[in-house]
């Protein structure tokens, strides 16, 4: 066949820009809005130890293009640093580690700005407002507990997310302190979780369309019957079942099965009937909000809407009013693909989109009324934000940030309202609570074994258990002693008991963990640093873009068993 060409090809408005080409593989995950959020950030890394995990995390953030980063590290590069940190080179020896690391990190992406802060942490913290420029702070252990407590206080006051990490030998840990209310609209649920067809709660336009498509179904040609969109089939057979069952909705499992059998009996193995058959169980559910959505709709921030609340709460309140009025959340408006004629599918798609648009318009008008009541002279909440909220309403998520736990020497570690749950975790064979306690003990050890003052050259000399050259067996015994005490205090605080043999096994396991931690002498293995740096970078991206769902609030990685565990501390 001779090649024929369209006379005028449609104009191309969306050829990718250079930036879109470079970031293509990540834009497919977090989109332009996520990218913009990343580009507006400034991350501060506070490093005391060998600092590889934090550097690796920054590498994974510089590459996708965060706005800026700073590294606070007063240390000078030693030979041992070169064997573990990829962002140092032989010529870095004797120079400031922060400067060298920043130089080699910014090479990765010309769009990112990096700054080295070489002053000791104490003098940095002594100044006013030092945290104001930053969007997120990442602190690597070891660190003086008093310094960590100060960082925590300042970041909490500014609602800046704070990450605290350990990476020692085969083990790593990080905890995240988020603001008391950290809402997420775009949680990226599985594609299959997004379908909301409202088969049990149809609206007039949908009912009308379905009736048209299924009218005279008995006498249709096989071709026509085989192209009825399955949503219409579901509506048709639900109707039929209800007519035979005094108008009752088929909500019980056996009712749904009856509808399903009806579909099978009438459609055989036609593809669209197969689709309908397969969709019965998940589609014949009344669209009830999940418990986490209900928690947001009934949250104090929604109920007693404050005039200066974040836009999220205005929209949440409007959605709550929508739900109270209609008994359903706003329709997301998407339609999964299904066997159908093109024009039928497009018509059906328009019906869902139009309904979603109406719901969105209703919510928007409520938001504007709420804004007026709150005294906004004109509406300031972006309609795009309202639209996203409406589309994702069934999957919105709220994290109630909790304060970071800090092991203060001489004071017992308290677990407060989490004591009972965490004491139970001690004997969970899948959990890593023992490792968390070993890291608390590590912090206690550092605090009680390090000289109280900063060195003359500005670097602090924090002593970790088992430093190269130290008596590691003696240190392991000390670390184990501290950890055992924390375990016993936790059990007491929880008001519970762990009987033998579980109790002795737990203590032996803690001893092995402490021995393994001491083996590394507070130093990082590059693989674990890189792995933990990857995990932390993923979490930072989730927090900065407010997309997906971050860890709440503590994550451990065991590089010997190759598994992780998340705890709520």
């Amino acid at each position: 066949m001779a090649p024929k060409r369209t006379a005028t090809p449609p104009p191309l408005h969306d050829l990718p820009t250079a930036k879109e080409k470079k970031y293509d593989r990540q834009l497919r995950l977090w989109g332009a809005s996520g990218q913009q959020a990343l580009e507006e950030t400034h991350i501060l890394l506070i490093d005391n130890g060998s600092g590889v995990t934090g550097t690796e995390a920054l590498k994974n953030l510089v590459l996708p293009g965060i706005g800026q980063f700073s590294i606070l590290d007063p240390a000078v590069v030693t030979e041992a640093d070169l064997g573990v940190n990829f962002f140092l080179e032989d010529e870095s020896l004797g120079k400031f580690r922060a400067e060298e690391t920043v130089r080699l990190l910014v090479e990765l992406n010309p769009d990112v700005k990096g700054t080295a802060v070489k002053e000791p942490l104490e003098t940095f913290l002594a100044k006013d407002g030092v945290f104001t420029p930053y969007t997120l702070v990442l602190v690597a252990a070891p660190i003086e507990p008093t310094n960590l407590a100060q960082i925590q206080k300042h970041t909490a006051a500014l609602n800046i997310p704070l990450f605290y990490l350990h990476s020692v030998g085969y083990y790593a840990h990080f905890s995240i302190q988020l603001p008391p209310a950290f809402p997420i609209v775009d949680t990226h649920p599985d594609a299959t979780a997004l379908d909301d067809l409202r088969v049990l709660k149809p609206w007039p336009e949908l009912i009308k369309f379905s009736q048209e498509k299924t009218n005279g179904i008995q006498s249709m040609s096989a071709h026509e019957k085989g192209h009825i969109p399955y949503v219409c089939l579901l509506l048709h057979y639900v109707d039929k079942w209800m007519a035979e069952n005094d108008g009752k909705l088929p909500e019980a499992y056996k009712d749904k099965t009856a509808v399903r059998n009806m579909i099978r009996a009438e459609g055989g193995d036609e593809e669209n009937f197969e689709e309908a058959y397969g969709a019965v169980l998940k589609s014949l559910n009344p669209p009830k909000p999940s418990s986490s959505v209900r928690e947001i709709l009934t949250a104090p921030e929604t109920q007693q809407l404050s005039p200066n609340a974040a836009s999220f709460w205005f929209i949440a309140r409007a959605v709550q009013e929508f739900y109270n009025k209609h008994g359903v959340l706003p329709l997301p408006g998407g339609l999964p693909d299904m066997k159908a004629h093109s024009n039928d599918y497009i018509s059906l798609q328009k019906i869902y989109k139009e309904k979603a648009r109406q719901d969105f318009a209703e919510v928007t008008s409520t938001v504007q009324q709420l804004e007026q009541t709150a005294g906004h002279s004109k509406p300031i909440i972006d309609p795009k934000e309202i639209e996203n909220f409406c589309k994702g309403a069934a999957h919105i998520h709220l994290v109630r940030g909790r304060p970071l736990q800090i092991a203060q020497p001489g004071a017992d570690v308290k677990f407060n309202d989490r004591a009972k749950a965490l004491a139970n975790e001690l004997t969970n064979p899948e959990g890593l609570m023992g490792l968390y306690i070993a890291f608390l003990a590590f912090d206690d050890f550092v605090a009680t074994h390090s000289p109280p003052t900063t060195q003359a050259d500005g670097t602090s000399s924090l002593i970790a258990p088992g430093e190269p050259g130290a008596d590691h067996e003696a240190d392991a015994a000390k670390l184990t002693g501290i950890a055992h005490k924390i375990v016993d205090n936790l059990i007491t605080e929880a008001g519970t008991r762990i009987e033998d043999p579980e109790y002795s096994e737990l203590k032996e396991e803690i001893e092995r963990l402490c021995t393994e931690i001491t083996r590394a002498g507070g130093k990082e293995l590059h693989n674990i640093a890189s792995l933990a740096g990857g995990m932390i970078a993923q979490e930072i991206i989730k927090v900065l873009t407010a997309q997906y769902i971050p860890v709440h609030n503590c994550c451990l990685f065991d590089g010997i068993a190759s598994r992780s565990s998340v705890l709520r501390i």
Partner: protein
Amino acid sequence: MAATMQPEAVRPSMNGESDFSRAKWAYLDSFLSRPGAYSDPEMFVPGEIPVKSISESAQILVIGAGGLGCEILKNLALSGFRNIHVIDMDTIDVSNLNRQFLFRAKDVGKPKASVAAEFVMKRVPGCNITPFVGKIQDKDEAYYKQFNLVICGLDSIEARRWINATLIDMVDDEDPDSLKPLIDGGTEGFKGQSRVILPTMTSCIECQLDMHAPRAAVPLCTLATIPRQPQHCIEWAHIIKWEEERKDIQLDTDEPEHITWLYQKALSRAEEFGIQGVTYSMTQGVVKNIIPAIASTNAIIAASCCNEAFKLISSSAPSLGMPGTNNYMQYTGDAGVYTFTFEHQKKDDCPVCGNLPKDLTVDPEQTLEELIESFAARPESQLKKPTLKTEGKSLYFPYPPSLEEQTRPNLKRKMKDLLSNGEQLAVSDPAYPISFRYNVSFS
């Protein structure tokens, strides 16, 4: 345990490098000079032995110098490994720069393997990385024999299946050195997996093939007559329109002019049917089957693979993959962090490492052609151009042309006319050194 048992600092003699200092490796050497709480005392003697195993004896092969490969090379170099080879046939593209951190904008168009090797060797002097720009299929058993361990950071299932089958084929029961552990990583978005395979001893890539089921293809008639989604319009342009109008030009999915052409065709078709949502980016995604990829996930999975390699070679802690223990870690990072670490069981009827034929139920009225098509979609086989034979006769050979011609008439014949119930069927594909054996029973 007596503290005197372990020397605190080791200075292994380095052949011909008297000025080579271990000062850089102080942390690593100290770590390997102390006993581990979980290491097997029979296997792990702290001190010089593990240090030398890592820095001198181990020869590691890295397959792939992309997102995972760059990380793997860095991790191996900073784990103290000094003898590394890397294979990759690709050149650097601008869309690699958001994660493949050994490459810069000036490197676009150069081969990945050599740029990556050069960068790591410059950053970590003393580490030797030998690049090979080409396909893994270009190398033979003699080449693969020189390594102690193979780490794969690939995006292709085909290449994984090939190296897996090759390493399994190389195992000689008389020669323990012929067993090359295979460590494999893969990522998609915020998710990934790493796995350790001891060829012939534990579950292999082929045993695990059904963990990566192929995506269901859209029926051709939907593309041709009733498109509903923007993707349908793009596939129509890709599969049907290109063949019709540009048959003589080989489609190159990296060529912007080709993608633009497909995009325009898809857009016109979408407009004709009132379908919204065709974009350039989506066209590229569908045609190239693009999988989202980010630096952080690559970092996690590559480091997990290298951590297993480090444990395996140094014996400083138990690694994944020992028979009867966990060999597979799945990482899911989109909602919180979740890892699932488990033992994937070896399959006795695995076509590569098993010795039993699989059962296959066949409709006797089905044609051979229909059966062949089904092998592409079956999760456990995924063979696109299979050769089929029974013990007595050749049913179908796609190559060479003479045999193809001879066996082609069989394609239209029914299975009941070609086979008897209970007969054994051998299915192979020239792309892999694998032969599937099936016991056929008629439905």
